[in-house]
C-alpha cells in the first residue's frame, strides 16, 4: 500500500505541482504589483498636498493598477482552476487505470482495496494541498495589499469536526466517482458515457437518500426539538453544537463513501474487464 501510495503521489505531483507553482507565481507577481502601487501612492502622498483626492492618486499609476486588476482576476480564476484540475486529474487517473494503464497496475501483486486506497489517499491529499495553495495565494495578495488575513474564529472542537467532515466529504466524492468509473468499465467505446451516466445516477441516488434521512429525522423532531435550541444557544454565545451532532456531518459522507468503496472493490476484484 505504501509503495503504491509513493507511486501515486509521484504521478499526481508530476501533473499538479507545475499548476500549483504557476498559480503561486501569479499570486506573488500580483502581490508585488499591488505592493508597488501602494508604495507609489504613499510616496505621492508624502510630497503632495494633504487634500489630494483618491482619484488623482490612483491615476498616478494606471498601468500598474490595470495590471494588478488583470492579475488579480487571473488569480481568482487560477484558484478555481487549480482546485477543479486537482479533482479532474485524480478522477481521470482512476478512470485510466481501468483502461490502458491497468495493464501495468493490475499485473502488480496488489489487492483491489490497496489500489483504491492508494488512489483515494493521494486524491484527498492533493485536494487538501490544492485548497491550501489557493488560500496561500489569497494570503500572498493580502500581504501585498498590507491587509491582515485571518480565518473566522471557530471553537477548536468545532473546527476539528468541520475539518473531519470536510475530509470525509472529499473522500466520499472521490469514492462516488471511482464507483462510477468501475460501473462504466468494460463498456468498450461507450465507457466514458457509461461512467458519466453512472456518476449522475449515483449523485441523484445519494441526494434522495439524504432527503429520506432528513425527512426521517424531521419526523422524530430532531431539528425542532434538538438542533434548533442548540443553534440558538450557540448563536447567543453559548457552547457550540455537541460532538454527537457534529459527528453526524462526518458519519453521513463516511457511510456513503464506505458503500462506494465496498462496491468498487467488489467490481475490481470480481468483475475486472480491461479493454
Amino acid at each position: 500500500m505504501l509503495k503504491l501510495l509513493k507511486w501515486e503521489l509521484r504521478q499526481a505531483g508530476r501533473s499538479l505541482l507545475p499548476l500549483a507553482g504557476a498559480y503561486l507565481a501569479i499570486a506573488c507577481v500580483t502581490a508585488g504589483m499591488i505592493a508597488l502601487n501602494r508604495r507609489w501612492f504613499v510616496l505621492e502622498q508624502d510630497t503632495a498636498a494633504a487634500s489630494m483626492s483618491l482619484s488623482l492618486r490612483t491615476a498616478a499609476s494606471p498601468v500598474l493598477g490595470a495590471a494588478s486588476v488583470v492579475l488579480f482576476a487571473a488569480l481568482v480564476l487560477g484558484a478555481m482552476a487549480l482546485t477543479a484540475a486537482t479533482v479532474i486529474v485524480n478522477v481521470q487517473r482512476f478512470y485510466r487505470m481501468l483502461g490502458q494503464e491497468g495493464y501495468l497496475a493490475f499485473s502488480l501483486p496488489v489487492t483491489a482495496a490497496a489500489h483504491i486506497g492508494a488512489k483515494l489517499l493521494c486524491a484527498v491529499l492533493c485536494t487538501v494541498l490544492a485548497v491550501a495553495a489557493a488560500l496561500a495565494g489569497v494570503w500572498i495578495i493580502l500581504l501585498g495589499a498590507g491587509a491582515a488575513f485571518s480565518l473566522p474564529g471557530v471553537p477548536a472542537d468545532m473546527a476539528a469536526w468541520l475539518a473531519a467532515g470536510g475530509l470525509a466529504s472529499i473522500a466520499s466524492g472521490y469514492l462516488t466517482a471511482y464507483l462510477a468509473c468501475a460501473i462504466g468499465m468494460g463498456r468498450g467505446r461507450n465507457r466514458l458515457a457509461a461512467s458519466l451516466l453512472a456518476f449522475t445516477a449515483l449523485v441523484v441516488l445519494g441526494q434522495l437518500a439524504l432527503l429520506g434521512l432528513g425527512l426521517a429525522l424531521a419526523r422524530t423532531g430532531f431539528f425542532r426539538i434538538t438542533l434548533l435550541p442548540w443553534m440558538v444557544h450557540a448563536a447567543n454565545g453559548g457552547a457550540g453544537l455537541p460532538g454527537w451532532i457534529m459527528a453526524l456531518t462526518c458519519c453521513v459522507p463516511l457511510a456513503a463513501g464506505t458503500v462506494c468503496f465496498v462496491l468498487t472493490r467488489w467490481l475490481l476484484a470480481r468483475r475486472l474487464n480491461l479493454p
Partner: protein
Amino acid sequence: MCTDCLSCQALSKTYGRRTALCGVTFAVAPGRITGLLGPNGSGKTTLIKLAAGLLTPSGGAVSVCGTPPGPASKALTAYLPDRVFLPLHCRVEDTLALFADFFPDFSRGKAAAMLADLKLEPRMKLSSMSKGTLEKLQLALVMSRRARLYLLDEPIGGVDPAARAYILSTIIRNYSEDAGMLLSTHLIAEVENLLDDAVFLREGRVVSAGLADDLRQREGKGLDAWFREVFAC
C-alpha cells in the same frame, strides 16, 4: 513445487453476445514452453488476459500454480502484454524501481545487464524511445523476474526480424527452467523450434493441443506448415 503452472478448465469468455473463448481446457507444465497459436482474433490475447487476471471468466476456471487469479497468482506470474504498458513519462530507472518495489523475484542485476545490451541508459525517457525499443525494454523487465509462469502475448508481433531474433534469444536465455511459459503468436515459423507444446485456437476453441513433437509426427509436417494448411482462408 506446483503440478501445473497454468491450468484452464472449460474456460469461456463472452463480450456481450460475442464469444471470444469457449470451453478451453489445457495446462502448462513446469519447465515447458507452450505455444498459444492461432490466427488474429482466435482468442489468444483473451486467454492470456484471463490467466493474468485482467479479465473475469464468463465460465470455467483458470489457476496459476493452483491459485485463482489475484494478488497471489500475480506474484508468481510475469506478464508481457501485446502493447506498451509502461508509463511513457517515466525514465528507465523508474521502471526498474517499480519492478524492484513490487516483485521480490525481480533481479536488478539481470535487468541492468539486459539494458546494457540494449544500450539503454537509466536516465533515458521512455517517451523518447521507438516502439521496438520500448517492447525490448518491457521484455527485459519481465524476463528479469524469476517467475513461476511467464505469459508472453505476441512478443515478436510488431518488430523487425533482427529484433525478433534478439527477443527470442532473450526469452530462452532468461527464463527459469522450473517455470512454465505460455507464448502467443501467429508467427509460428519464428518460434516453432522453441516450443515443447502447442495449443491451436480457432474462433475461441481449441483445435489441437499436445506435445509439439507428437503433432509434427502425427501430421508429418512442421507446425507452421500444418497451421497454414488448417487455417488457410
